[in-house]
């Protein structure tokens, strides 16, 4: 409660510094459980844990916000149990911020039998043959019981490769579903609902969608329906279009983006929040993230490599272990997976921290140039990256 007796909103967003050339900005987003500096990368803890890492380890690397999946948590342990536990924060022993997705994306991508109707997503239960419906109201009820700081509206997701009237239908339904979600939302005091911009690769649909969403009283926005196999040229144009149209004083979240180069480009285009399973998934396959992309520690050439995964990295893995040791246990011992997950999550968080600092110190364009030089040290920087950055006044050699 503030001095005047009005409630502090569940999200405040304060821009700290802006890049003079590009659209990059760094801000402080204060949520009920934690103040989060943006641009931020949110590691994905699908089922209430982040791939073998303890909450203590995430805190030690200054991770302040995690993503949880509503579809998985809603199925198991389920909203009833989460309510009894006092919400996901208490259940998993994490007292910093959490964002939950709506469950819709998992439905459509995991369940081949999912059918989208006006009421919601109709699907066959993976446990028995019964038919279930995830409506906008259900999704919000589940997310209310999970209790995340930021919750997402249920959207009508179509593949970014889909064309024709289905894209428009999905965009319009997403707006209708947003209103149902907002109506069903019972915890606006401590949970922020974000709408999702849809509209495929069509500029006009995206514009119409944003125009509708901004009329609603919400505290942040997400850009959805991209990062699904579309051409990178289409990807960045949609991100830029949405970012340009969305209000400047609210956070913008680009869903499912996690490759380092994509993060850097999207920040330049004005995006504040990201999530992706990539760092932990690639760790499971024995890969470590490095300045030049990633290395697969299973490869024989690392058997005698006495360097840390990434030279100069200050994560607990790189401070203690060599590539040679990780090579000798990778994909055999769970410890190897944990070590790589720690490094990869740290790598992403450190990248975002470096980005934030460069914005504060008014050297973001130089940061981007150096980053791209290292990432593409032995190859040409892809044309889409040059084009995207040029569109926000950052020139690459």
């Amino acid at each position, binding site marked *: 409660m503030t001095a005047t007796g009005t409630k502090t909103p569940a999200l405040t967003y304060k821009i700290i510094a802006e890049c003079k050339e590009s659209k990059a900005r760094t801000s402080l987003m204060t949520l009920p459980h934690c103040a989060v500096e943006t641009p931020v990368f949110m590691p994905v803890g699908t*089922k*209430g*844990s*982040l*791939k*073998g*890492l*303890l*909450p*203590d*380890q995430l805190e*030690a690397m200054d991770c302040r916000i995690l993503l949880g999946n509503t579809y*998985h948590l809603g199925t*198991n*342990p389920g909203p009833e*149990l989460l309510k*009894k*536990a006092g919400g996901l924060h208490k*259940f*998993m*022993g994490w007292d910093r911020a959490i964002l939950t997705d709506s469950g819709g994306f998992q439905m459509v991508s995991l369940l081949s039998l999912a059918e989208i109707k006006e009421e919601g997503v109709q699907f066959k239960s993976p446990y028995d043959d019964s038919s279930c419906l995830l409506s906008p109201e259900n999704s919000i009820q589940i997310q209310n019981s999970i209790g995340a700081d930021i919750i997402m509206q249920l959207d009508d997701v179509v593949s970014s490769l889909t064309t024709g009237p289905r894209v428009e239908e999905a965009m319009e339904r997403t707006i209708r579903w947003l209103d149902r979600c907002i109506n069903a939302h019972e915890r606006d005091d401590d949970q922020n609902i974000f709408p999702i911009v849809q509209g495929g690769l069509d500029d006009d649909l995206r514009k119409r969608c944003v125009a509708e969403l901004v009329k609603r009283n919400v505290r942040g926005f997400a850009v959805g329906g991209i990062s699904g196999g579309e051409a990178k040229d289409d990807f960045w144009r949609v991100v830029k279009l949405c970012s340009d149209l969305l209000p400047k004083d609210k956070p913008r979240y680009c869903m499912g983006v996690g490759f380092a180069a994509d993060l850097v480009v999207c920040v330049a285009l004005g995006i504040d929040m990201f999530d992706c399973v990539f760092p932990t998934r690639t760790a499971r396959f024995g890969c470590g993230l490095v300045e030049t992309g990633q290395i697969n520690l299973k490869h024989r050439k690392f*058997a*005698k490599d*006495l360097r840390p995964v990434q030279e100069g990295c200050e994560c*607990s*893995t790189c401070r*203690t*272990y*060599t590539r*040679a*040791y990780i*090579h*000798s*246990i990778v994909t*055999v*011992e*769970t*410890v*190897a*997976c*944990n*070590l790589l997950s*720690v490094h990869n999550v740290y790598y992403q968080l450190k990248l975002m921290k470096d980005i934030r600092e460069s914005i504060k110190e008014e050297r973001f364009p130089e940061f981007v140039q150096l980053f791209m030089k290292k990432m593409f040290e032995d190859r040409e920087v892809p044309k889409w990256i040059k084009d995207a950055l040029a569109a926000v006044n950052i020139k690459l050699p």
Partner: protein
Amino acid sequence: MKFSIIGVLNTGARQGKLTNISRLPGVVLETPLLLFYTKGGSIPHITREVLDLLTKENLGIQITLPSTIQCFEGAKSFGKGIAEFVGLKEMLTYCSVQDSAINTPEGYNSKEQISVWSNTGRVAVNADKYMDIIETFQPDFYQALSNGDTHSDSSKKKTQKVMDSSDKLLDKCLERHQSSLALKSISIFGNIEGGYDVDLRKLSAQVVSSKPVDGFIINGLHNNGPDVEKLNLKKVAPLLEAVMKHLPEDKPRIIHGCWRPEHVLKMVDMGIDIFDSSLVYITTERKSAFIFQYFEVPVEESRTESFDECSILEINLEDKSYKEDFRPILEDCTCLSCRKHSRAYIHHLIMNKELLASTLLMLHNLHHYMLFFNSIRTAASKGKKISISY
């Protein structure tokens, strides 16, 4: 490494300490000592960062050859020993021939070649190859290469053969050990064989203790793995008695395997100094958490000397009865898992095959077992012993 006896209880239990560890100046570890079992050089499911959340104490670790033989090339180019290679350089490091937690298939050893089972299959190791590995690994102490392929049903002929081959291997290891500059400050432990034959056990103890070894392993009682929990200590006790009589007092004695806690207490009374924590790993792998309670009793108190009491040592968190149990594994336990997480959460992680389940179980079980050993030592220092309550 120097071993000295601080005291002996009426029960026969010894209190000792390990000092003068040349790699770890100033470090003192007291016995009865628990060596933390490792796999591939790491405590299973526990990275160095997580271990530091469990304890800052000086620990001993057991490096097992089958799970680390693939580290040989890497450790060799690293050149600073296995402990630092696996991120545990401050730990007292012991190398064993076999993996205490995993069953060693029977019948694959020849007179000179001992089979170890790595993650890529069987590897035959002779004394020279073994000593190459030890020179590279640079542990603080190690088990001489041994056969040990006997158990309660082994024939006398087989037992004799195993004993002879272990003796020859010990001689070869000792020859290399004494001429190697790299092993100058490293201790070698000899293997007492003899299976379940009291006479052969006695003979083995006499023969091995006449050699320049720094300590002993009571070997060949089992083929490792979870079955050790089911062993009948009544059968083992007479063998240990026969052996102990013939071992010098001033050298430490190791026994491998996932013995039940009450068996550990009994073996402490019989004069064993060093154990490994394979039971912790095996318990964790079956999704269980220790809940056994123990307390100090006067040494005179003799409880019913039943070796095979059926008791609740652990709870299995896979069981659906824990689905809504928001209590910690064990009330009043101060481990990280119990301070921050519930049975319900661990159950959820188990049901969803999340890696964190094993980490949380391992943290609790290691903590519980470590405190159990601390209590054994503390009780002994007060002239008391530990009894497990059910």
